[in-house]
């Protein structure tokens, strides 16, 4: 029934337009899915509810995919869920494998998105209970685990990874404290009252610093010759073999993280990346251009987008900023999301779910042929690309809030990012700690308030205890490994 509804010509057309528009919006740094969906709300007033929501869902998915395009090609993360894709995706592009990277991003997004929609169709009502069982201690344990997993992406030095994460948390403290209303580290600047904008930090830390590093040796070629033959534009058999596990894990992790209200595509993407690295036989190669480093986060962020629909449709609780905007749109059109939505407006709900399938298919159809075009972009000489990257970054960052202060943030973090690259500090933990920081702090303080200051609360509740244990294990694992190796060397020596 859902497919019947979704397949009307009008709905198909608008879904197509939605995904197209979404991809273009996602490609521009700074303007993410939330803004894209919000811009569209007035335009959809004239449509009927189903068509409107289908369009907006298309934009949402399209923007997810668009963000990964610039991440891979230019090391410019379009929004927070694409940050992890830069780590291996950009490295692949530098080695001439931009086509397979883009292809795998599209395909894993499609596969994971389809998986999420399947799960949504089959077990949405059952998931409602799971979503509600997460209280502040569980959220703290989850985000703490996310942080420890991310700091393990420190490359050579876990110590520097942790320092990077701590710096990110410190930056997250800037602004008005949500719980007490106290202004922290704002240096009497009105601009800092709302905190440091994520997009300025991410674009500065990744894109601008990368340009600066490349500028040191202007004669050196940045992108290895990218081949344009059809075969080299798409992932080959070996790529598929490497990515299969990543796809499964990424989809599952993404979906279950996405279901949790408040945890969305961003957290899902780097949990999937970190988990993939831990499960891999060649963890040290992550960050140099492994295809599974693209498949895992890309799959996870699309799967999370599907998962985020679960609390929206079953409980009426929006799981993320974008779903909140979607919920607003639903209400404007006279539909009240919640447990009754399935029974009161079944044609709408199933139409929406079916349109998510169709949206995924449309993305693939639209984007696979475009890969050749995108890859051609890399053939432009870097001396022309360089000003382009800086300008797109600066204007994109400015466009988020029409505030020139954001560009100053980008400048400042571009400098910091350059220094960090020189000193071998990984940028990813900083930016991800910045995203997670508010949630970490809020859930920590809420939990401690609940428990009257006792840390027991994290260990007495089952879900929280499990997650905290995993977090602590992954934090101290490198230390244990070093000590264990020394112990073994000590045993071997006397035997000689």
């Amino acid at each position, binding site marked *: 029934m859902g497919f019947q509804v979704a397949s009307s010509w009008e709905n198909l057309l608008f879904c197509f337009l939605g995904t197209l528009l979404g991809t273009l919006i996602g490609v521009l740094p700074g303007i993410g899915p939330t803004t894209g969906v919000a811009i569209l709300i007035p335009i959809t007033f004239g449509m009927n509810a189903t068509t409107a929501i289908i369009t907006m869902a298309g934009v949402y998915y399209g923007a997810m995919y668009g963000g990964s395009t610039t991440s891979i090609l230019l090391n410019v993360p379009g929004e927070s869920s694409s940050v992890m894709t830069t780590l291996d995706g950009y490295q692949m592009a530098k080695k001439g494998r931009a086509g397979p990277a883009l292809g795998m991003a599209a395909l894993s997004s499609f596969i994971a998105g389809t998986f999420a929609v399947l799960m949504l169709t089959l077990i949405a009502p059952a998931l409602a209970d799971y979503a509600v069982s997460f209280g502040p201690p569980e959220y703290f344990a989850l985000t703490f685990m996310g942080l420890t997993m991310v700091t393990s992406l420190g490359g050579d030095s876990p110590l520097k990874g942790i320092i990077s994460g701590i710096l990110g948390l410190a930056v997250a403290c800037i602004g008005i404290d949500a719980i007490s209303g*106290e202004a922290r580290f704002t240096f009497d600047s009105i601009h800092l009252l709302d905190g440091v904008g994520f997009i300025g930090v991410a674009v500065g830390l990744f894109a601008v610093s990368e340009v600066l590093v490349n*500028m*040191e040796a202007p004669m050196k070629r940045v992108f290895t010759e990218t081949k344009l033959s059809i075969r080299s534009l798409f992932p080959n058999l070996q790529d598929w073999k490497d990515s299969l596990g990543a796809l499964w894990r990424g989809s599952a992790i993404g979906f279950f993280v996405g279901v949790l209200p408040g945890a969305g595509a961003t957290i899902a993407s780097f949990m999937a990346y970190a988990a993939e690295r831990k499960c891999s036989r060649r963890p040290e190669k992550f960050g140099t251009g492994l295809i599974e480093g693209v498949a895992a986060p890309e799959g996870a962020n699309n799967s999370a987008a599907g998962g985020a629909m679960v609390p929206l449709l079953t409980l009426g609780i929006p799981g993320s900023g974008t779903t909140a905007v979607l919920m607003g749109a639903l209400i404007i059109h006279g539909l009240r999301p919640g447990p009754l939505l399935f029974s009161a407006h079944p044609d709408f709900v199933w139409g929406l779910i079916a349109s998510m399938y169709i949206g995924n298919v449309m993305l693939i159809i639209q984007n696979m042929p475009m890969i050749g075009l995108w890859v051609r972009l890399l053939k432009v000489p870097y001396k022309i690309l360089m*000003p382009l990257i800086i300008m797109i970054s600066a*204007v994109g960052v400015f466009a988020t809030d029409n505030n020139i202060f954001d560009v100053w943030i980008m400048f400042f973090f571009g400098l910091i990012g350059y220094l960090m690259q020189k000193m071998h500090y990984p940028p990813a933990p900083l930016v991800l700690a910045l995203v997670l920081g508010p949630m970490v702090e809020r859930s920590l303080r809420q939990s*401690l308030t609940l428990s009257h200051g006792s840390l027991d609360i994290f260990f007495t509740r089952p879900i929280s205890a499990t997650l905290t244990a995993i977090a602590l294990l992954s934090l101290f694992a490198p230390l244990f490994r070093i000590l264990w190796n020394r112990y073994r060397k000590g045993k071997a020596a006397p035997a000689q």
Partner: protein
Amino acid sequence: MKKADIITGIVLLALAGYLMQEALGMPPSRTFGPGSGFLPFWLGIILAALSLILIATASLRRKAGPDGPVFPGKEGLLTVVKVLGGLALFTLLMETLGFVVNTFIFVAYLMGVVQREGWRSVFLTALLTTACLYIVFHVLLGIALPRNMFGF
């Protein structure tokens, strides 16, 4: 790398001290739970501990490390400074010069002064970049871009 690590360690230690100092100045934790100084204070402590470990491990390392000098030579560094300086000026002058003029000048600067390209490619790139950005952001997306006092 060894010297660089020690210097960064000291800088981070100073930062940790600043965090703790600021945190102690905030209202104390009350019965309602941890106050606003809670997290910054503990971040300061962790950061201080980590910086000390960093300085210690760097000092104990025997040689300077096989990866060579941290920063590029004079010419490379100068280029980086030029780009950063240009970006700073660009951001500063945005409101005064307006988007169109500012972008054109900045791209021309990057192409001409920093990269020393011929005036033809300088002009063309600056023109095309400004035009494309203007069309995409202002015309297509409807975002208001800064204008100077002459209105463009």
